[in-house]
């Protein structure tokens, strides 16, 4: 899954920009030249793995914050059903493939859909900015008042919290992304209108944050798996490897920022 994620990041955020992934871009991937359907298999596999991972992440978070067994089971079932629904939608889009005409499609008259999707993106961005600002404000307030900052003096605490926050953010965006890609076969013009919103300056910090979140989540997951496999041989590497992951995350996010600001390789 990590390999597929990095290929996807490279294609969409490094070699191109999200706002440039228009219906023509997707048509080239899913169209007649995609002989054996390799890109469609790639995209569908990535969707399946990402949704499965998301359901597993929700399961873990539910275990952490919900005490009652019945509520846990209900939330797990809801997450599973939602994932199945989004997988079905994504599968339908992949199977439908490239439409013949850009202005065709059974949903082409539903102009409220791109407006709702862009509204969702703005809401996700606003929630992200508010959350980050609140966390930084609380931290600064406590430090300036010389209040203890809880367990935040441990690097492991930061690694864990960033992993959780990144996972939740990625899952939220993934669901919106499935909805906008699902527009492609059914209303390409509306899909283009949605994708054009990624060029909005207000969304740029969120998009860079999303790239950083994906890179961090993937690398931190690999880090934890490696430490677990290494057992005693890796026990001294926990803190240095976290620093390495943060440095790599920043380094790999900078090209995406440059692309979003207009630079093209």
């Amino acid at each position, binding site marked *: 899954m990590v390999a597929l994620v990095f290929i996807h990041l490279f294609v969409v955020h490094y070699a191109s920009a999200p706002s440039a992934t228009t219906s023509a871009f997707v048509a080239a991937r899913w169209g007649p030249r995609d002989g054996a359907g390799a890109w469609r298999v790639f995209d569908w596999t990535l969707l399946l793995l990402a949704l499965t991972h998301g359901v597993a992440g929700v399961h873990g978070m539910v275990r952490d914050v919900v005490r009652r067994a019945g509520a846990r089971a209900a939330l797990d079932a809801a997450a599973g059903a939602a994932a199945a629904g989004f997988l079905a939608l994504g599968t339908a889009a992949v199977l439908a493939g490239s439409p013949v005409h850009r202005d065709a499609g059974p949903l082409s008259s539903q102009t409220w859909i791109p407006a709702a999707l862009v509204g969702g993106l703005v809401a996700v961005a606003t929630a992200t900015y508010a959350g980050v600002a609140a966390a930084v404000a609380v931290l600064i307030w406590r430090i300036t008042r010389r209040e203890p900052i809880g*367990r*935040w003096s441990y690097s492991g605490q930061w690694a864990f919290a960033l992993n959780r926050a990144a996972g939740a953010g990625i899952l939220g965006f993934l669901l919106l992304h499935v909805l906008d890609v699902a527009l492609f076969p059914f209303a390409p013009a509306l899909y283009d209108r949605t994708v054009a919103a990624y060029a909005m300056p207000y969304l740029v910090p969120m998009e860079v944050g999303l790239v950083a979140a994906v890179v961090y989540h993937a690398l931190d997951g690999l880090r934890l798996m490696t430490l*677990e496999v290494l057992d005693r041989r890796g026990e001294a590497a926990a803190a240095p490897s976290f620093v390495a992951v943060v440095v790599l995350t920043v380094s790999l996010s900078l090209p995406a920022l440059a692309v979003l600001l207009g630079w093209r390789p």
Partner: protein
Amino acid sequence: MIVRVRRYDPAVDRRPRWQAYAVEARPMMSVLDALFWILESLDPTLAFRYSCRAGMCGSCAMVINGREGLACQRRLERLRGPVSVEPLRSLPVTKDLLVDLGPFFEKYRAVDPFYVGETGSLIGAAPEPAVVPPGDPVRGVINRQIDCISCGACYSACPVVGIVPEFLGPAALNRAYAVAADTRDSAGLERLRRVAADGGVFGCHSVGNCVTACPVGVNPLLSIQLLRKGAVHR
């Protein structure tokens, strides 16, 4: 040196408060020494626990400048001032820096932290001690893990313990591993079944605060990881 102590008496106070004391710091003075100085010179009502004063018993574990540690082992001169001193987290405060370790030891007991012989006997009926040569790799597996002094520092540092009440915590799971890894122990499968259940090893998020917080160099996360592998391969 200013030492700020988190004061709280559940019988009197509605919420914890910080109280600052100006301590006449001396070379080699430990945080525990500073607390004694406060107790004897400034405030006889301050409550804290201690015993050996040599880093062996774990009684004086508390949170010092945001990190768990033994007050008798942390030198004032090596700490950035003002020094903050708090009781261990995730445990009920009896008074000031004194916590009730009851919940910690209840979870410890839940893993049957003792050797079980082939006949199901407990330690009192154990056969002759096993002969394990000093260089034997079997010894190497559990050597450090049995150094745990049950101070509660890892339990306090663990964020999962803080949010998931049924999570057994690093110390109990470390102990479960130490006895499960004993080749003479006959309760291994039962132990793995128990630690694989809700509140066990799969609730750990590999945060690793327990490893950093342990004042005697035990690695509870390693024990949890090895128990996980055992539970998966079971």
